[in-house]
């Protein structure tokens, strides 16, 4: 059994200590600490939404299984080779490292973007928890393509869940963080139970005889993830969609360098492989289990062909991927408890982090007040089901927005001095806004939007060329900007 004391240690230290100095040797943590943290953090409420959305996107068995194996591997490698080496050499938080490169005002802008994204993410987690209340109170719940709240019951449920989460995040963050650590091993196993129960029900429903791995694969390929057209209103997911989604869904953390704040406590950069615990448990097993629950719901509704799906859609009878009812069907009350806890324990730190990001912009406001307001915004966002139902696209946008700053840090750390330029330029020139970094950020986002709008590149893929655009732009703009403004050498 993994003792999450270590996970708590990483989380606590990464948020509270050595904010403006390198982590000293005496505060470094062992490999086990990072395994616990990643396994817990990436088995969240949103996994219950993402898995079913893969099915809604019409994935085939090979696409989803192969795509997750490759995509999660690429994510782990991004932590190991991009984020952790810089973290273990500089040993600074993301924010302090960015401040040295970009200046305080640009970091404030980054904080704003980060805080807004966290708010929406927390909103999706509140949505997930609220679907559990729908099972108990039986109010009309959102449909797959709903954008706006569709019933008073839904609004009240989201308001109730969101208010509790916001108040707890503001006043009892540490208690919930401890509760989240306790819930984590149990939650992982309940996700596994979802998958086992769903698989058994598929075998019973289809009357399949499973006596070999080949039989199991045939069931997976022809019934569970049968491919074909996506559900109406959804984008078709192929092997490459799943691969890039799994790779980039935590892009802000690895390529975007947010986890510099975590891995600055690692003794060695290879500790980045600990992220595999989160990827293959949360973004592998949990996604597959959750997707099987929704696939089973479609199968039981007789939606076993594209024609049947079209007919059901035209009649308005298409089932929605709602985590509450799905979990209740597979695991009863414990499943509902899992949905609520999964949403709550992950929304709690997300609202807290968003609050911290906003507080950096308004330093004179109290943390409690800012967290409450942040929680209220997240709750409002959670009332709109489009946020959860379009979660795949939102997560891709989230990564795309924060990715350029990761490229800036990478270039600053490895390339600037080799190219005869200054690294940590804002710190040396005492600028509060490094325009080379700022323009790189804005222009990269603009380029990505143009690529999506006019070049037919889907949002799930655009961050890959976007990273190279950001890296080249930062070098070119720094060449121009740094020659115009001479650095003020410290101690000169």
């Amino acid at each position, binding site marked *: 059994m993994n003792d999450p004391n270590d996970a708590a240690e990483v989380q606590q230290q990464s948020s509270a200590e050595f904010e403006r100095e390198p982590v000293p040797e005496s505060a470094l943590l062992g490999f086990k600490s990072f395994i616990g943290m990643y396994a817990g953090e990436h088995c969240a409420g949103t996994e219950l939404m993402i898995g079913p959305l893969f099915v809604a996107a019409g994935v085939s068995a090979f696409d989803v299984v192969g795509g997750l194996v490759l995509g999660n591997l690429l994510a782990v490698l991004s932590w190991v080779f991009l984020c952790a080496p810089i973290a273990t050499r500089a040993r600074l938080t993301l924010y302090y490292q960015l401040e040295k490169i970009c200046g305080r005002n640009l970091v404030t802008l980054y904080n704003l973007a980060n805080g807004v994204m966290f708010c929406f993410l927390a909103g999706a987690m509140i949505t997930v928890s609220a679907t559990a209340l729908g099972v108990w109170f039986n109010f009309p719940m959102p449909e797959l393509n709903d954008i706006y709240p569709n019933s008073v019951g839904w609004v009240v449920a989201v308001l109730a869940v969101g208010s509790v989460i916001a108040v707890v995040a503001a006043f009892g963050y540490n208690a919930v963080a*401890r509760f989240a650590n306790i819930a984590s091993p149990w939650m992982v196993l309940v996700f596994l*139970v979802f998958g086992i129960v769903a698989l058994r029900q598929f075998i019973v429903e289809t009357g399949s005889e499973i006596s070999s791995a080949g039989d199991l694969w045939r069931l997976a390929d022809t019934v569970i993830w049968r491919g074909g057209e996506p559900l109406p209103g959804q984008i078709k997911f192929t092997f490459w969609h799943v691969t890039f989604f799994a790779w980039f869904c935590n892009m802000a953390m690895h390529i975007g360098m947010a986890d510099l704040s975590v891995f600055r406590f690692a003794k060695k950069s290879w500790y980045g492989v600990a992220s595999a615990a989160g990827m293959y448990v949360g973004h592998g097993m949990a996604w597959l289990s959750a997707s099987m629950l929704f696939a089973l719901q479609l199968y039981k509704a007789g939606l076993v062909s594209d024609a049947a799906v079209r007919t059901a859609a035209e009649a308005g009878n298409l089932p929605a991927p709602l985590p509450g009812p799905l979990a209740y069907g597979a695991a009863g009350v414990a499943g509902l408890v899992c949905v609520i806890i999964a949403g709550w324990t992950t929304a709690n730190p997300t609202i807290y982090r968003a609050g911290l990001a906003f507080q950096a912009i308004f330093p004179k406001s109290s943390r409690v007040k800012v967290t409450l307001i942040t929680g209220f915004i997240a709750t409002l966002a959670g009332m709109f089901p489009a946020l959860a139902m379009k979660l795949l696209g939102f997560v891709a946008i989230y990564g795309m927005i924060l990715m350029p700053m990761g490229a800036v840090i990478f270039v600053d750390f490895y390339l600037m001095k080799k190219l005869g330029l200054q690294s940590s330029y804002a710190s040396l020139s005492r600028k509060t806004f490094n325009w080379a970094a700022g323009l790189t950020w804005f222009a990269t986002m603009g380029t990505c939007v143009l690529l999506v709008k006019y070049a037919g590149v889907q949002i799930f893929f655009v961050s890959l060329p976007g990273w190279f655009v950001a890296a080249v732009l930062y070098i070119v703009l720094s060449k121009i900007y740094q020659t115009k403004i001479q650095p003020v050498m410290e101690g000169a």
Partner: protein
Amino acid sequence: MRLILQLISFIALVMTVLPAIVYFSGNMELDRVKWLLILATVVWFVVTPFWMGKKEQS
């Protein structure tokens, strides 16, 4: 005492997943799986806070 509590927590975790495995093999009804799951959940959340996150006494 800590060791006993850890053992109970471990059994609760096993009981979280074991009924589902027995159900998968076709030897248990789903309703019974759900009840055992609730029981294991209650035991886990009642017992585990007494040792997890608390420093071991020297």
